[in-house]
């Protein structure tokens, strides 16, 4: 990494300055999650009394909120729905975007990159523009209020991103290894399957991970297409359906958010390097 402060011995003043800035950003980004975590373990009496330091526990921290989340709310359904939708969407996305991306990398010559950019621009078409006509289409198809409406629609944005990410990985496979496989007796497709795909396996993993988590980000399609809580995803179920009457059970709400936020963050961190490599078309080696 290029940074002058990494190469020269740092002054005390420089060190303090750096750690201050680090602290500032850590708090800026992490404080909401800290607050949510603390909330999760607070009893009602502790939480809903003002006047004392809110970061301290006046009563012992409890796991009850998490238990009620799973036993008395449809939260588990939300998780199952999100996982099922994620897996099926990943499947559809891979089947369509792997050949498309390979074609753009190897089979389309000079037009490959412009076309890839065109496909990427599709990713920028906002769901908040498309959700209205799509909700009509979904109703016409009879898929309204089912998770399959989302499975149908999500590849619309996961495919462009996957194609773009995979393009970077396909381009990093040395061309002569592919051509060697062709000379050794395979067709282009055969070479793709037997030599190229094993070599881009890390890229495929990365695409799977990012596609899956991308499906969990959507809010508006799920909000517009699904109304029954049994069919809801995490994203729409938590803000709209974990409220009983007018009462927000905040501890469970915060629990429901953190239970998703932490694993997803862990996975992203594991794959971040590969993501950057694909995103920048191999220009940056993570």
């Amino acid at each position: 990494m290029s940074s002058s402060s990494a190469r020269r011995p740092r002054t005390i003043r420089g060190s303090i300055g750096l750690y201050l800035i680090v602290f500032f950003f850590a708090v800026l980004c992490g404080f909401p999650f800290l607050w949510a975590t603390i909330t999760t373990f607070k009893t009602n009496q502790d939480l809903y009394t003002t006047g004392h330091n809110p970061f301290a526990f006046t009563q012992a921290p409890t796991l009850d909120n998490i238990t009620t989340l799973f036993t008395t709310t449809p939260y588990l359904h939300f998780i199952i729905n999100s996982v099922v939708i994620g897996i099926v969407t990943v499947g559809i996305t891979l089947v369509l975007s792997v050949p498309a991306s390979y074609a753009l990398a190897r089979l389309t010559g000079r037009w490959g990159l412009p076309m890839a950019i065109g496909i990427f621009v599709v990713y920028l078409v906002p769901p908040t523009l498309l959700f209205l006509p799509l909700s009509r289409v979904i109703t016409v198809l009879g898929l309204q209020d089912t998770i399959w409406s989302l499975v149908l629609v999500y590849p619309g944005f996961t495919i462009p991103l996957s194609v773009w990410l995979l393009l970077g990985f396909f381009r990093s496979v040395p061309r002569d290894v592919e051509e060697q496989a062709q000379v050794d007796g395979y067709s282009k497709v055969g070479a793709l399957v037997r030599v190229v795909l094993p070599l881009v396996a890390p890229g495929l993993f990365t695409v799977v991970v990012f596609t899956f988590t991308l499906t969990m980000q959507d809010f508006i399609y799920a909000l517009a297409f699904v109304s029954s809580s049994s069919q809801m995803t995490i994203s729409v179920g938590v803000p709209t359906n974990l409220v009983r009457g007018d009462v927000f059970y905040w501890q469970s709400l915060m629990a429901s958010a953190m239970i998703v936020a932490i694993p997803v963050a862990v996975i992203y961190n594991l794959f971040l390097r590969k993501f950057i490599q694909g995103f920048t078309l191999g220009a940056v080696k993570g």
Partner: protein
Amino acid sequence: MSRIDADTTSAAIRARPARRRRYALERDGVLGSLMLGPAVLYLVLVVGYPLVLAIMYSFSDVTVGSSRFDFAGLATFKTAIHDPHFPAVVAHTFIITGISQALVVVLCTILAFTLAANFRGKWFVRFLVLMPWTTPVALGAIIWLWMLDSIFTPFNWFAQQLHVIGPGEQLNLLGHAGLATASVIAVQTWRTLPLATVIVLAGLSSIPRDVEEQAEVDGAGFWRRLFGIQIPLLAPVILVAVLFGIVFTFTDMAVVFILTGGGPGDATQVLASWAFYKGINGGNLAVGAADALFMFPVLLGLAIVVLMMASGRREKS
């Protein structure tokens, strides 16, 4: 020079047309179309077609209840624009996007340089920094909703400790128009900062080392190197990084919907959330579509910028 006589060669040419046809499928052009086709078709159906429909709706009078679809010319657009809230909605969209992304530009650059340095606990800080982006938007918004709750927000306690407000008072962060807008801006900045930082960080590591070392040898100090060399070289990367944030913020409805519901009153409505209210809650698909379409010119402009930058980069490589 030829050791094969002409007869043998022409006989060989006549003999093998059948085999040649078998391989026609493997020509680059044909194979490329076959492999690209399905994905393109899917996108046309799931993105292109609805886009066209959205445009058609805005020229019609279609509603959720009716299956009628009559051409209405520009009437729907007029209705949308003449709504008393509409100018404010547009203004809010630009203000929230503009301010949040301006903040992101500055913050992501500082943060990228910070993360490029070495310090203890860096992996943990990086983990924290990524969380606003990795967490689904809706969940992040609900966390902020609780954190900014009028009665129970911890900021009340902070403000009381700092004697900004009295013991029984509350900040009511989501209750005043200005504070509510600021809150939305805060959330948008918070959630788009990580992606921008990651992109700029990647760009930092690809600045050729020798340019920097040359500057050091030439006697440039830390600040001059930073502002004279590194930041100018980073400018295109920062632009790309912020481009995404602009698109995601400009077209987002989740934060507004969950955090403020568009309120107080309609003080924080943006085009995307407004289109939702009109189209789904209000049942008027045509007006909703027209409202949403007003996002399109800005998006088109951004797409053109993306394409221009990408072709510029292509020429260089």
